[in-house]
C-alpha cells in the first residue's frame, strides 16, 4: 500500500513540476508579492525608509517658519523640500508639482508667521496652508497635521518666552536694573528651554516597547511584516491545483484505471492528496528560507514552533483543496469558485490588509478562515517572538480546520 501511495505521489509531483504555470502560481507568485509589497510598504515598518516628501513654501519674514521646517525635516518620517530644481519654491510651483503628481503635499507659511508667533499682548492670528492631493489618505495627512501643530505650539512658547519674561518683570519688579534683568532672562531661558524644548536632557521621552512576554530584541522589518501574509496567501493556491488535478483525472478516465487496479480507494486518495501537502511544505520552506537568506528576515526563536505551525497550515490548505475537489463537478465551477474563495478568505484573514485596522465585526468574521489563524501563528513566531507553547492553540485550530475540510471533502468525493 505504501509503495502504491508513493507511486501516486511521485506521479503527481512529476506532473506538477512539468507544468510551468503551476510552479509559477505556487512559488513565484507569492514570492513576487513578498518582494514587491515589502519594498513598496517598507516605509510603514522601518524608520527612515520611504519618508514622506513635503514641499514647503516659506514666505515668512522672520525666522520661526524656517526653525519649524528644520525640526520637521529632522524627523525620520519626513523630507522637507524648500527648493525645486535649484529654485526657491513658490505657491504656484508647489501647486503645479501636486497637479503633475510629482509630489502630493505642500505647506505654505504666511509672511506674518513669525510676527504673530512672537506677539504677546495683541491677539492676531494667521494660518499655514496645507495643500494635499485628494488621493493622499487620512492616515498620511492627519499625522502630519498633528506633528506640525505640536512643533508650532513649541515654537510659540519659545518665541514668546523672552517677551513674556519682560512683561512679568515689568509688572512684578519694575525696580530691577537692566543688567539684573538681562542676567535673569538668560538664566530663565536656559533653564526652561533645556527642559521643555529638547535640550540635552529632555524631561520626557517616548520609548517603544513590546508587551510583556513577547521576545522582541529588534523591531521587525518590512519582510517580517509582509512575508507571513503573502506566504499564507500563496499557500492556499494549492487548492486550485489539487482541484484541477482531480477533475482532470475524472475527465480523462485515469481514476477508472486506478480503481480497477488492486488498491483501496483510501490508498488512491492518500496518494492523490499527499503530493499537494508536500508541495505546500516545500512552498513554506522556500518562502521562509528565501526571505531569511535574501532579505535577512529573522525566523524568530522557535524552530519547533515554525515546524508545527507549517505542518498544520499545510494540512488546512491541502484540506481546503480536498473540500473543493469533493464539492466541485466542473472546471468552470473550480475556476470561478476557487478564485472567489481564495481571494475572499485571504482578504478576510488579513493577508492583504492587517486585521488590526479592520472593524471589530470584520476581525471576528476573519476567524472563520484558516488564513487568519495561520497568519496570527506565523506573526507570533516571526514578529512577536513567541515560542511553541503560545502558538499551539492556533496550530490546533488549523488542524481542526484541516480535519473538517478533509472529512467533508472525502465524504463528498466522487471518482467519476
Amino acid at each position, binding site marked *: 500500500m505504501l509503495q502504491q501511495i508513493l507511486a501516486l505521489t511521485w506521479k503527481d509531483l*512529476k506532473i506538477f513540476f512539468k507544468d510551468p504555470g503551476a510552479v509559477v502560481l505556487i512559488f513565484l507568485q507569492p514570492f513576487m508579492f513578498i518582494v514587491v509589497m515589502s519594498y513598496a510598504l517598507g516605509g510603514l515598518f522601518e524608520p527612515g525608509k520611504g519618508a514622506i516628501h513635503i514641499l514647503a513654501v516659506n514666505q515668512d519674514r522672520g525666522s520661526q517658519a524656517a526653525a519649524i521646517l528644520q525640526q520637521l525635516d529632522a524627523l525620520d518620517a519626513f523630507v522637507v523640500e524648500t527648493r525645486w530644481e535649484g529654485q526657491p519654491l513658490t505657491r504656484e510651483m508647489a501647486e503645479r508639482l501636486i497637479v503633475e503628481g510629482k509630489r502630493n503635499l505642500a505647506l505654505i507659511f504666511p509672511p506674518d508667521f513669525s510676527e504673530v508667533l512672537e506677539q504677546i499682548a495683541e491677539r492676531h492670528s494667521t494660518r499655514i496652508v496645507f495643500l494635499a492631493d485628494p488621493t493622499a489618505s487620512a492616515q498620511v495627512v492627519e499625522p502630519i497635521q498633528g506633528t506640525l501643530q505640536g512643533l508650532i505650539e513649541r515654537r510659540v512658547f519659545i518665541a514668546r518666552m523672552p517677551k513674556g519674561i519682560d512683561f512679568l518683570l515689568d509688572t512684578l519688579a519694575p525696580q530691577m536694573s537692566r543688567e539684573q534683568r538681562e542676567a535673569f532672562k538668560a538664566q530663565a531661558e536656559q533653564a526652561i528651554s533645556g527642559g521643555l524644548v529638547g535640550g540635552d536632557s529632555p524631561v520626557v521621552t517616548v520609548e517603544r516597547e513590546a508587551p510583556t512576554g513577547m521576545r522582541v530584541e529588534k523591531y521587525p522589518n518590512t519582510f517580517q511584516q509582509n512575508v507571513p501574509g503573502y506566504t499564507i496567501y500563496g499557500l492556499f493556491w494549492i487548492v486550485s491545483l489539487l482541484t484541477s488535478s482531480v477533475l482532470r483525472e475524472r*475527465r*480523462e*478516465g*485515469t481514476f477508472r484505471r486506478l480503481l480497477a487496479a488492486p488498491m483501496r480507494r483510501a490508498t488512491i486518495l492518500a496518494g492523490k492528496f499527499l503530493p499537494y501537502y508536500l508541495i505546500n511544505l516545500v512552498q513554506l520552506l522556500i518562502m521562509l528560507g528565501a526571505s531569511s537568506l535574501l532579505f535577512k528576515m529573522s525566523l524568530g526563536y522557535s524552530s519547533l514552533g515554525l515546524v508545527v505551525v507549517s505542518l498544520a497550515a499545510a494540512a488546512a490548505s491541502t484540506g481546503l483543496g480536498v473540500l473543493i475537489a469533493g464539492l466541485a463537478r466542473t472546471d468552470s465551477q473550480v475556476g470561478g469558485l476557487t478564485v472567489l474563495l481564495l481571494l475572499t478568505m485571504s482578504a478576510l484573514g488579513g493577508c492583504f490588509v492587517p486585521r488590526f485596522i479592520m472593524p471589530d465585526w470584520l476581525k471576528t468574521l476573519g476567524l472563520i478562515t484558516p488564513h487568519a489563524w495561520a497568519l496570527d501563528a506565523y506573526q507570533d513566531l516571526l514578529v512577536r517572538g513567541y515560542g511553541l507553547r503560545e502558538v499551539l492553540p492556533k496550530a490546533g485550530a488549523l488542524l481542526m480546520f484541516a480535519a473538517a475540510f478533509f472529512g467533508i471533502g472525502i465524504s463528498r468525493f466522487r471518482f467519476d
Partner: protein
Amino acid sequence: MSSPIIEVSELVKKYGDRLAVNGVSFQIQEGEIFGLLGPNGAGKTTTLSILSTLLQPDAGKVQINGYDLAQDAERIKPLIGLVPQELALYPTLSAWDNLAFFGRIYGLRGRRLREQIDFVLELVGLRDRAGDAVETFSGGMKRRLNLAAGLIHQPRLLFLDEPTVGVDPQSRNFIFEHIERLKAAGMTILYTTHYMEEAERLCDRVAIMDEGRILALDTPQKLIGLLGGGVIHLAIPSDFISMLLPAIRALPHVQAVSPLDGRIKIETTEARSALLELIQLCHARDVPILSLEILEPSLESVFLHLTGKHLRD
C-alpha cells in the same frame, strides 16, 4: 470443455429507474475473444465496468477465474487489464513514465518493471517514442499506449472498451494486429464495440446487446447465418401490402415475410435472386415500388433484423 474463466449470470444494474443491464448472462472461455456488440447505451460499458470491479451490480452473479466478484474483488483485480474507452493517460508525462506509474501500481519494481515497459512499448510499436510526452502523440499512438498501459502487468484477462473510437483506419488496423497477436499468445479478451466489422474480424463469439439485454449470442458466422441469404426491406403503397404478402411469401427464394413500420421485411435464402423475383411480381401486379433496401448478411444487418434499429442509431 474446460470451465469458463468468466461466468456472468442474470446480471442487473439500475441507474434510478433505468435498467442499464437487464438480466445479462454469458460465459467466456480462456483464450477466447468475446465481443459485446451494440449501440451506445446498450449496456456494454456498464457490463464491462461491473466485471472490472468498478461498479457493484444490483443483482446477478459474476465469477472470474473461480472467484466470486462480490467476495473476492481484490483477487480478481490483478488478473484484469482494463483499457477504458477514454485515453486514461497522463498527457504531460512521457510514455515511459505513464507505463512505469501503472506498473508500480500493480506492484512491478526494478528490472522486472523496466523489462515489462520495454516489452509493451515494443508490442505497440512505440519504443522509439518512449521518452516523449504523451500530449505530443497522434490519436492512434495514444490509443496504442492506452492498450499498452492495460497490458503492463501481464494480465490474464484484457478488457477493451471501444478501443478504436476516434482512431484513423491505419491505427485501427495496427490495434487489430496487436489484439490478434495477444489472442495468439493465449490471452482472454472481452471486447466492447459498436463497429460490427471489428466484432466480425476479431471475436470468436459475439453477444449482441440492446437496451441492457443480450439479444443473440454466438459466433459471428452463426449470427450472420440467422439472416440466411439476406433481408430485403420493400416499401409499397400501404393499400397493396395485405394483397401482396401471400404472393411474396410464395416466391422461391423467400423464407419469411412480415410487415415492418409500413414496409415489408422479407427474409431470403439468396437476396439477389429474391430481389429479381420481387421486381417481377410488383411489375406483374402493377404495384409501384417506393423503395427497396437489401441487407447483405452481416452483424449490422443481424442487429437491424433483431431490433429494427441501426447499430449507429
